[in-house]
């Protein structure tokens, strides 16, 4: 994971010619910790630490009314007007979360550009969304589950692959 974070940090600074105007916004919950790690990494590369934020997408999901309401967490986002916002998430799957994150972000301001960084891209997109930065592509089946573990939350870093039965999968979406 360390290497993936380091590589993404380099790619972000390369592509944006440094880290000026870059804001790292993590999608709650694990994306926030990844954004913080990326910011630390960019700090060590560039000598400046880009501002970070936390974005809760619960109120923007497209499955409201189809399952019990998800718990919400506070959104804390610095000024993003005219900035290059890098949305950070742990897993890119159907693309629906990223769609919700884009909508939530647009409600908060008008960034110059929005880029997407994910630790794992597991495929099976249902929307026309592509990540700008990918830690690792992991081919998966629909009946599989990808869990990213973050030391800050889970006690250790890592990625777990598991099988889920179809009904649980359906409920989880």
């Amino acid at each position, binding site marked *: 994971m360390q290497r993936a974070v380091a590589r993404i940090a380099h790619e972000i600074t390369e592509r944006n010619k440094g880290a000026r105007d870059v804001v790292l916004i993590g999608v709650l919950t694990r994306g926030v910790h990844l954004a913080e790690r990326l910011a630390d990494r960019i700090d060590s590369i560039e000598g400046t630490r880009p501002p970070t934020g936390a974005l809760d997408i619960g*109120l923007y999901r497209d499955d*409201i009314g189809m399952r*019990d*309401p998800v718990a919400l967490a506070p959104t804390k986002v610095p000024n993003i007007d005219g900035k290059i916002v890098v949305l950070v998430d742990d897993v890119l799957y159907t693309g629906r979360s990223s769609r919700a994150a884009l909508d939530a972000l647009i409600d908060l301001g008008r960034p110059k550009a929005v880029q997407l960084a994910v630790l794992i891209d597991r495929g099976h997109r249902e929307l026309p969304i592509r990540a700008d930065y990918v830690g690792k592509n992991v081919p998966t089946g629909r009946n599989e589950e990808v869990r990213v573990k973050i030391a800050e939350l889970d006690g250790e870093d890592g990625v777990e692959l598991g099988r889920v039965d179809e009904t649980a999968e359906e409920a989880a979406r």
Partner: protein
Amino acid sequence: MIRHLLSIKDLDPEGIERVLATAATFQADGPRIMRKYPTLRGKTVVNLFYEASTRTRTSFELAAKRLSADVVNFSVSGSAVEKGESLKDTAQTIEAMGVDAIVIRHSSSGAPNRLAGWVSASVINAGDGMHEHPTQALLDLYTIRQHFGSFSGLRVAIVGDIAHSRVARSNVWGLQMMGADVTLVGPPTLLPPRVEGWGVETTADIEAVLPKADVVYLLRMQLERGTGATVPTLREYSRLWGLDAARATLLKDEALIMHPGPMNRGVEITADAAELPRSVITDQVANGVAVRMALLYLMLGGRDAREEVPVE
């Protein structure tokens, strides 16, 4: 989450905590900055108000609109309750229009309970007679938690016309559920009958209570609900049980002054006491929108309640 909120007792401590935590997320950018979310697009909330109440209606309306629900205000004047269309007929008319939630304010205790038996929409009690005002209690709990972090062991003194007060009832049950100790303060004519069953302390001596209280909650003297005959004069009430700045000096440094509004300044609270730094009366109003947003999100953001069979 619950289908109807008729009483604060419809929630358990976990449910209350969930509402308060969700409300806090709406105030992450500051208590008075409130953004708009697309969450409840396509949902319709009807404000069915049989009693005039600009503040509660506006608070619910803002909350629903901030979540992109459509809001219809349906006001019925007091006289129409007696001779106009019955509540049941009105309920069925509204129901036929396909609404998701009905927020009801009514002068009859239990009117929301009746309504809930007649419609498949969610019913939210916005104050019924002398029964309950659960969303007021939730925003009061939220305001108290903002300052103290938790409720356990807090001493809350509720002062005034408890007998006629729906705010008092919801707050007493809510505070007890969350672990606070409640003392009711006022002359026995303003205490509810058989108050022994409420599990609270009661006293007529406000000055003995203030030094121990973490929160002093002043109730409105509700002249329209028959408070009139319960004290000789408002002047005497004010002198014996009202809060003025001098009496407020008896409070602990960190103690809060609360009031559900609208205030009868000079009766239960003087202007100088209401404007003390420890008074959180305007915070209560600001918090009302966030708490009602949280409630609407949790009650309407889940599976379509209308698909369930109504329980008679």
